[in-house]
Structure formats: structure tokens, C-alpha cells
């Protein structure tokens, strides 16, 4: 159950630490990847690669951070890269576009009382996610599955949390300057 010792073992080169992490997180990681890739073999491949990558770079992981959100963020981006590589599809432009239908279905499913209806809605949600371009699937997974808040973004990056937030702040400000857009601060 405890990730810290597993990661410490990994930092000392002990592959047993990785086994522990795989056992704990493979299922949720594959589900996360699947929601983006929409194909199960590719999702498994993504997660395998992600565990191996973590194994190789475990020495850089700040064990004060929770492993699960860090790893799932890594998986979700890796899944996006994989599905874009496979489909050669382009980057979507607006993370919010076309999520409305999915949101509606999720809202319906969240208050459903009949199991049969819930199963139907699950199938519809599955189809709705599949119909989204990969980037929008990423946005949906981030928002509704991983429930990412901005403060958690740091966990997705391999740097100290403050540095990550810093990078985001800077990047956004620079972007506004870059585009010459005068959006009000929100």
C-alpha cells in the first residue's frame, strides 16, 4: 500500500519496488490510458512503457509527492502521444469543444436509478468518448476521470511543484504576450 518505500527501493535499483507499484496501479492506469486510446492493447502498451520509463527515471522522483496522480498524469499524456502517433491525427484546437454531449451523458448517468439504464448510458458514454478527437478525450479524462486541478499539474511534471507552477504561469503570460491578446485575468 505504501508507495514511498517502493519508490525508495526503486531509487536503490530494486526492481521489487516496481512490482509493488504495478500491482497497485496497473488497473487504474490501463483504464486511464484506455479512455484516451480507446483500444485496449494500445492502452496496455502505453502503461507498460510508462512503468518502464518510471523505473528508468525513478531516481528523479520526489517521493514527497503522491505517486498515483503523478503516474496517471504521465499515462494520460503518453496515451495521447500514442494515439496521435498511431492515427497521425492532428492536435485539436479547443479542449472544450464537443465535450458538451459527453457532459450531458455523464450528468444523466450520475443520477440514474436503474441498473439497466446505467448500463445503457455507460455504452453511450463509451461511444461518445470514442467519437472525440484524441485531445478532447485527454481533456475529458483530465477533467472528469482524474479530476485534475491546476495545483495537481505539478505532479505531472518531473520537477519540484513550485517550479512547475512557475513554468505554467510563465508560459501562459508569455503566450498572452505572444498572441497580443488582452484577456482579462481570471
Amino acid at each position, binding site marked *: 500500500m505504501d508507495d514511498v518505500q517502493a519508490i525508495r527501493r*526503486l531509487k536503490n535499483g530494486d526492481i521489487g519496488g516496481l512490482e509493488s507499484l504495478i500491482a497497485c496501479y496497473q488497473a487504474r492506469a490501463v483504464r486511464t490510458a484506455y479512455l484516451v486510446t480507446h483500444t485496449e492493447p494500445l492502452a496496455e502498451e502505453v502503461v507498460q512503457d510508462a512503468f518502464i520509463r518510471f523505473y528508468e527515471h525513478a531516481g528523479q522522483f520526489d517521493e514527497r509527492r503522491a505517486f498515483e496522480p503523478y503516474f496517471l498524469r504521465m499515462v494520460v499524456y503518453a496515451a495521447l502521444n500514442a494515439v496521435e502517433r498511431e492515427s497521425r491525427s492532428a492536435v485539436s484546437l479547443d479542449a472544450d469543444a464537443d465535450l458538451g454531449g459527453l457532459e450531458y451523458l455523464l450528468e444523466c448517468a450520475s443520477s440514474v436509478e436503474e441498473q439497466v439504464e446505467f448500463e445503457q448510458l455507460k455504452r453511450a458514454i463509451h461511444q461518445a468518448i470514442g467519437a472525440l478527437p484524441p485531445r478532447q478525450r485527454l481533456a475529458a479524462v483530465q477533467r*472528469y476521470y482524474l479530476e485534475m486541478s491546476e495545483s495537481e499539474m505539478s505532479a505531472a511534471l*518531473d520537477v519540484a511543484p513550485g517550479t512547475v507552477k512557475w513554468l505554467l504561469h510563465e508560459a501562459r503570460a508569455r503566450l498572452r504576450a505572444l498572441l497580443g491578446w488582452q484577456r482579462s485575468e481570471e
Partner: protein
Amino acid sequence: MKKIPYSNILDAVAGDQIPADLDLAPNIIARIQKGKGYRMQPRLKLISAVLVAAIVLAVLFYAVPGVAAAIGRWFGYLPGVGLVSEGQVRALAEPATLTRAGVTVTVDQVVLNQERTALLYSVDGLPDSAIADVREEPACDYRVTLRLPDGSQLLATPNGVQNWGSGYQHRFNYAPVPGAVDAATLLIPCLYQARPGAAPENWEIPLRFVAAAPGATVFPVIEIPTPTAVVAGAAVTDTPVAGTPATAAPADAEAGLSLTLDRAVQMEDGYLLYATLHWEAAPYSSVSLNNPAAALHLLDANGQELVYELRDEEGAGVNVDQRQTVFALKTAPVQTPGPLTLALDSVMVTIPAEASFVFDPGPDPRQGQEWQPGLEISIGERRLRVVSVVHEGSGYSVAMNSDTGIISAGVVDHEHTVVSGFCTEGSLLQGGRSDFGCGWNYQDGVPAGPLTLSITSISVEHAQPLAVQWTPPAVSATLLPADASACLTPETWQAALGQPRPIPAGLAGKVLVRGPVDENNPAGDWGIAIANLDGSARQPIAGANDGAFSPDGAKLAYSKIDSGIWIMDLSTGQSAPLAGTGYGDFNPLWSPDGERIVFNRGVGIFDLFIVNLDGSELRQLTSGGVQEYPAGWLADGSLLYNVAGRVYETTVYRLDLHSGESQVFSNENISSVSPDGQQLAISELAFGERWQVAVSDLTGANRRALASGSLWVLTPRWSADGQWLLAGVSDTDSGATLGALFNPSTCEVIPVPGLRGSILSWAQ
């Protein structure tokens, strides 16, 4: 009716498509054992950060956070809250704790001011059986709200999570509580990730607030007069990256960049410094830190680099209107009296550009259609290429690259209404070339006919030394770190490497090392090998995962993932499986008499087992429901083992093998015990994410730090006489790990450059 969280619905949707008996471990382990091993690759850190930041940027473009208003005079700095104004701070009167059915919820901290209410609470004692397996069932709906006396409820904004074996600690922010309200109730209908009904629910914990007591942790804030000693920075010349002609937009020379130190928070273990980068209006539209890990330096009075961490403090960030960028960094303890110097080698500047190109998608652009214009566009002395344009959604995305120092460019369509967009930044670390792009959506779908796309600005790295100095108050005893007298610093390590010394007489034996399989290729595959102390006569052990020599040095116990613990007779090189062990057993440790092996068994939860060398008398030593690792033996035959508690916390227990009773021994991460059972080697994760080693006696007294600075010292192992330690020293800059002998008594450090990798065991 309680609503099902969206995350649970999606979990169920995905779970329907994933086999229930999923087991990726065999494939992953096989791929690792065939391919690459563990090694450090420090440079990847930055690259991945930049790349992922670019992706995040694309997704979160509209989640622009507010930039704090100008900072006034501060009362002090509260950990977890930040700078607070005088007279505005209240806090929890006393920690509030409630225990029900073995589960304890503690509100550790609440700090209230006019801006927000920050709350930290923890849960412990949550049994595994109470945690929902989300494949089978949804976890309960997790909400943590604050109910005020008038019945209104404040909703939480998550601000940090830490999980450990039996609990978690969560941090939330709430809206400000009115000053007249001195009480509230924390409501937790259901604990985080708990199975409905499996753990106590509907927690209500009354809280009482008082004015922050004088004894509360409030660090003093030192306002630094402005301007401080600006060492450089008046004149600016735009210096492009190597390989490009020098260029200077006419206005560059007139643009002033300056750096100021504004305030310092004096903490027990260093300073939190607030600094500001200022720029004049032209020619830059924005200036900010660029690759701070490489470009931002903090030097003490002796010119030595001081470790720091950039912190996300309120008020930090780019403020284009005020033409300034505020950043905060926490320093390591300041040991040397005299001025600190904050120095920047380069910054990132955004420069307005005036360039455009025409893109004609033709009469009927299709979703996903890609065009490859191959245009090369000059912007001053620099160039960028428009590699591709793709139609997706209701707009286009443009992929660009440059080999003249441009790392991002803003592309917009001024002639049509655009409703959303993003840009990504490249990295100059990839051979001087960078890839970047922009994309946008039109309000009314993609317009017909050729489009004129404008490049409004570019971002480049700008080499410009800037520095500022500030002299902290006299260094007090409390600021001196424990490792001020460390035996090893980056400087002494370099000096020792430059003056090779022989291994002291009397030190020899075999070493079990985890390092590169090919000594000439440190970046290649890693594995386990036996070698002489000087690294010679290296013999790889195929498939080994870990291992330890027997006390008499005649045998080696090691584990293989697929078949458990093996015993090798070193005189013959023959190995045989240890009866009673099997798949997944690992981490063997010999008993002092060499007759028994302690090892770990389990997945997720690692208990300790012991077995005789002939496989008899296998028995389980611990069953704590957590991960327990053997650390070493004391002289009385009791076993020390580490148990991870909360994040960053370790508890070491002392197990009496006869009675089976365990007692808390220490709270430090004990890496190994000397052969006489009288001294401890302690591994600790120091500020700046560095592993360090200290030694002490069994009571923790006579502690001596073996290393300080940026070097990592890994897995120390004792010599037979307890006079020396053999450890791997990892240079975080180069990634190389070399063996080194430490004498804790004399502080001698003798590099063993032939030993590459971390040390698992040492037999003499």
C-alpha cells in the same frame, strides 16, 4: 439521492473494456531485464518538463490564474499560507481530533485571513478493507466542507494530497470566513476513497478560531530596500544562440532589464527570497525566467552555489502590465556570513514581430487534412519554417520550427473571429533546433478562401547576465545545518578524484555492485555483478535483482524475480535455489551467524520472513499491513526493520526474534548497521532532492554527516571492522555513480573509480 461522481462512471466505462485479471508485471519485468536498467539521466528532467509544460499549456490556456495585487507591508510569513498582512491572521485554537472505530481524523491546521481559509487535515488508521476497489464498486462521494454557524457551507478547493499506507493528509482552501465568525464545523460525509459503509461516515468536527497566538509559527519578513546593488543589467544586447549571426533590434540596446531582491522571509532552515525581474516597455512584451535550473544561480559569500528550490508563492508570476516578473525561491541554510548573490545568466524574452504568410486551404478543407507549406519566414535576423498546417475542429493548427533560436511564435488570423487557441513552446536543448506551434478555432467555422496569418511575436532566449546582492542578518546558530562539517562536498570530491589514492591496506574483499554491464558504456544496460573492491574481476550475475554476502564472505544470497532467493557458493560459482522461497521473494539479509536468511515477501504489502539455509523453519516475522524492510542486526541479535509511515517519514522497529515483539527504535531511515551492531548508517533525503548519508551511534548521538552539496551518496555498506563505509557517490550533473570509501572518524574520502554503480554488499 446521492449522485455518482463522473470519475466513477468513467471508471466503470473503462473497466468494462479491461480484463479483470490484468497482470502487466511479467511483461514489464521481462522488458526491463532484456533492455535498459536503472540509471539517472539528469538532463531528461528539464527536457520532459519543457515538453510537458507545452502540452499543459495547450490544454489550460483559459485557466489563467490571477496575479496578486501589489504587495504591501507584511506582518509575516505563515507556512502553508504565505505572506500575511498585520492583524489579519487567525488560526485554529487547538488541533481537533476525533476517533471512531479505530479511524482518526485530525484537523491539523487552519489559518484564516482576509484572502482565504487554508485547512489541513489528516486521516489515519483506515484499514485496507475500507478502501474501495473501484473496479468493483464506486468509492463514496468525497466532499469536505466547512459549515459556518449560520448554516452556510464553504466548498473546498483541493490544494494538495499526500497518501500513505493507512491514511492521507489533504489540504484545502476555502473562501474567507468573516472576521466575526470564530467557529465552524468540518463536515466529511465519507472519507477519501472509502467504500460506502466500510468506514465511519458523516464526520462532524467542531473547530474554534482565535487570533494567531504569539507562539504560532510566523516567520519574520525582511523588506529589502529598493534598489539593491544591481551588479549588471543596465545595457542589454540581444544575443542569439550559437550558430546565428549576432542581431540587435535597434531598441534592444535601450531596453533596460534589471533584477531586484524585494524581501526575504527568515526561516529556520534558510530564507525564502522574493525577487523581481523588471523590463522597460520596448522592445519586449514579456520577460521571464528561462530554464531556471541552469540559468538561475544563488551564490554565498564565498562564491559557492547554494541549493535552492523555486516555490509557488502567491504573487509570483509574470505581470505584463507592470512589466515585471516576480519569483520566489527557498534557499538551503545559509552557512557563510556575507552577501548572497542572485544571478541570472539568461532570460526568456518575447519580442513583437511583424510578419505574415498566406495559407490557401482550397475550396473544401477536410477534417484532419494536412498541408505542408514548407515556408521559411525571416523575422529580423532569425528564421522560422512553417512545416505543416492541419484542419481539425473548427480551425487550424500550425507546426513550425527554427534553428535560429526562436522557441515559440504567436500566429493569429486577424481577419476572422477566433474563439480559442493555444501555442506550444519548443526547447533549445534538442541540437539547437526547436519545434513549436499554434492553433485556433474560428467562431463560425473555417472561413473560405486563402487566409493571411500573422506572426505577431516570437520568444527567444536572451543571454544577459543579471545579478543582485543582499546580505542576510548575521548567521545564527539555528541556521547552521547539521552537515556543516560534512566529509564530502562537490569540491572535495573533485579534488579527491584528481589525486588518486590507493585503497588503504587491510581493506579488500568482494563487492556486490549494481552498475553498467559494460564498464565502458555507463549509459548502457545495468546489472548486478561481483567485483573486487577496486572494481576488477567483475562477474555479472544474470537475472539477479539484489543480494547480500554471507557474514563469512563465502556465499552470496540473491533474488531472481521469477524464482525467489538463490544461494551462490563463491568458491565454485554454483547457485541453488533456497528452499521455501519462490516467485517475488526478494531482499535477502543474512543472520549474523550465517545460518538463516531474512527476506521480503508480498505484493504491495511486504512482510518479513525468515528461513534456515536448508529451507526449514520458514516463518513470518511481521504482518503489519505495510511495507517492512530489513535494515540490519543489533549486537543482541534483534533485527532492525524500516516501515514507511506518512510521506517522508520512516519508523524503524526493533524485533526480538524470540518473543516476536517489535518496539519503535528510531524515526530515521537506517540504511545499514555496522557488523558489531553499534553504529548506524542513515540515509536521508535532503533539501533539493539529494540523498545524503550520516552515521551515528545507536542512540542517534555522535552524528556525522558524510556529504553535503549536490552529490548523492547511496547505499552505504560497512567494512568488517566498522571503520569504513563503502558507498556509491552519484554526481547529479553527470549522472555517473562511482564507489567511494568513507572513514567517518577521520573524514577521509577515497574514490574507487573502478567501482561503477551503487553498492549492495561488501564481504571482507
